[in-house]
């Protein structure tokens, strides 16, 4: 219970950082933080304290559910490609506007 609430706190902090950061790079970083926290939430939910990893060995024991883990690997790979695309966009935005500050960027957008 305590662990789940701490993970929810992480998700909340990630959302807060995403909403309040003024620097574009910082926003992208907090998007990744949020994603990692959500992955942790799913893994914690399907965690058996006395279980083993979902790999068949001679040791035996009850394995953890492998389905959420397979989905989370998909999430990580897609998150990496989204981040790469977002970073390229940030470079282009910097070259065109000369700043990465959300506030100044929005002002420039309004002026045009």
């Amino acid at each position: 219970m305590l662990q789940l609430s701490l993970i929810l706190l992480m998700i909340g902090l990630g959302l807060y950082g995403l909403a309040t950061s003024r620097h574009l790079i910082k926003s992208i970083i907090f998007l990744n933080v949020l994603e990692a926290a959500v992955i942790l939430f799913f893994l914690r939910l399907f965690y058996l304290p006395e279980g083993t990893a979902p790999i068949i060995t001679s040791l035996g024991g009850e394995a953890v559910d492998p389905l959420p883990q397979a989905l989370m690997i998909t999430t990580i790979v897609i998150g990496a490609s989204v981040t790469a695309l977002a970073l390229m966009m940030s470079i282009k935005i910097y070259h065109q506007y000369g700043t990465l500050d959300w506030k100044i960027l929005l002002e420039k957008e309004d002026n045009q």
Partner: protein
Amino acid sequence: MIKKLMLLLMFGFIFLYALTATAPLADSFPETSIGETVIHRGYDETASKNLVAAILLDYRLFDSIFEAGILLISAAGVLYMSRSSGFSKPFPRAKEAAVPKDSDSILAVSRILYPFMLLFGFYIIVFGDLSPGGGFQGGVILATARLISVYIPEKASENTDPLNRLEKILFLCLLSLGLISLFTRGAPFTNFFSGSVDPEFRRLFLVLLNLLIGLKVSSGLTIIFIRFIKEGK
């Protein structure tokens, strides 16, 4: 200040709501029925000891192939954005900026590390069905090894076109490898050996698939990386 306070209040409310919603889940240890099936029958059906790889490479192979396709799309997007003239720098560059030289110790360490990283990446890829790992993870490690090789002057090549072509060809290979089972077993996107064959032979399909996915992921990430470095030059 008021804005931040409101935001904090809002997130606090969401946090409390999520807490009450997830409280009954904390001690119940839920298990999906699919997961149970995979644990009990996974090795017999897919010949993969790593059950996560069994799901990724057999049960939902269709999804995995197009997940690799997303990386292709991302690399294409980066290529497009870095080449498009509408956004790029308005002036021709008159003089190369003075780039500080890399230190000798970095160069020496990367020379030693480079083959070991390649070895580790291929190990992770090839043994992806027996131990933790697989195409995606090994591909990322291979890409990281390529990033290190940028520091080695005689290995650095900056042309992304062959890599781009390689990635497309590998994606088509993946698709066709997934479709072979349509002719041998009558069902697409699964192992092309039937279930009665020895698992040691059926592993071949998984190793091939892992290799293709690994090479594809590493070439896609390398394209993205080289475009990042070359951007603005």
